[in-house]
């Protein structure tokens, strides 16, 4: 699977349930390569920034505990239809990804 992500949004009376799934190896840097015996370099998402209509609504900073192809879910209140939710992530190597979803 190439580096992709998917966002699913469900609106229940103004409380929006957001689910995000991301393709990412999420190496915590402690695993050993079985052939060489060396540590596989750390490569994991360390920041999520959620924007609502361009405004920062939620910032999560994480370390290497999340597993491969992570799932990220959260709820936002006081949302209206057609609000735009943007999910941005960056990892420790500087790579990043982003996806949008519109509240129904």
């Amino acid at each position: 699977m190439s580096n992709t992500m998917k966002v699913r949004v469900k609106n229940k009376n103004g409380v929006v349930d957001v689910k995000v799934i991301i393709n990412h190896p999420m190496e915590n840097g402690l695993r050993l390569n079985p052939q060489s015996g060396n540590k596989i370099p750390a490569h994991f998402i360390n920041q999520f920034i959620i924007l609502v209509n361009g405004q920062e609504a939620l910032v999560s900073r994480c370390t290497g505990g999340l597993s491969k192809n992570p799932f990220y879910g959260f709820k936002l209140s006081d949302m209206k239809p057609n609000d735009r939710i943007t999910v941005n992530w960056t990892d420790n190597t500087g790579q990043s990804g982003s996806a949008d979803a519109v509240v129904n």
Partner: protein
Amino acid sequence: MLSLSSSLRNRGRIMKILTLIAVTALHAISYPALAETDFNTHPRFDIDPKLGVAGDFSGTYKYWKDTQAIEQFASIQTNSDNEWKMNGKNMDIVEDDFHPGHLAVDEGEKLVNLWEHREAGFKSCLGAGTTTLEGIAANYPMYDAKLGKVLTLEARIEHCAKKVLWQNFKQGSPVNASIALYLKSLSDGLPIQIDVDSGPMKEAYLRGETLFYKRIGQLNFACASCHTPGSIMGNRLRGEVPSTPFGDVSHYPTYRSPVGEVEVLHKRFMRCLKQMRAKPLKPGDPAYVDLEVFYTSMSNGYPIKAPSIR
């Protein structure tokens, strides 16, 4: 000198023969059961292919036969020793589930459309004559008369990639797995329907059944050693409890969390053989195809769930 050696040798031969007779006779007297047992196979169980998934021999089918049953009997899962009775089906009825399998379905859809755009004919090859790909996965494995062999879904993808696209989408590779999962997702909710009543499919079913009971590997296990009544099924095998093989194929290919990838059925066979210290074969192997026909018959009538997570 020569005559002495030859007479000694003759006496030696006679003694050898007498010893062999005595040893064999003693064995036959002490262990009569040995004479009847076929050590190459595990004892067989009567499976009626006409019953499909309802022929489940573990007695657990009533717990997971449909969404209603799974919800009704959900309480049996609180005990880790009884969890196996739900056969993992509780994970398939979660409304709004969201996992990397969904990403793989999108990936598969992208791949099919991309290659169809480059070489028109890919889709109609996958559909064996039709570009409507909804529902086709429910009839695999199937016998293809033109090619003269039983094809699994992954084999069809490999064949069409070679024939139409001149590409190598090897069975078990991420490309093949993503497309297979996408095609399966187009049949999500439909019951598996394969015909093993006659012809090459019936022969494949019988061969697969034979392989299911064949003792293999250093540990001398057959598939049946962990997946039939009276075997390890239902009992703990270290931290796990093996469950019934009935109904399993309906959720394959599946996203495997412990492995971090979409796993096709042949890859699962390969992994299990490795764990059982037996020789693992490659995805696409004819032995796996026969086993898949046998296993799919044990899920006949059960609705497909794709994408699934295990």
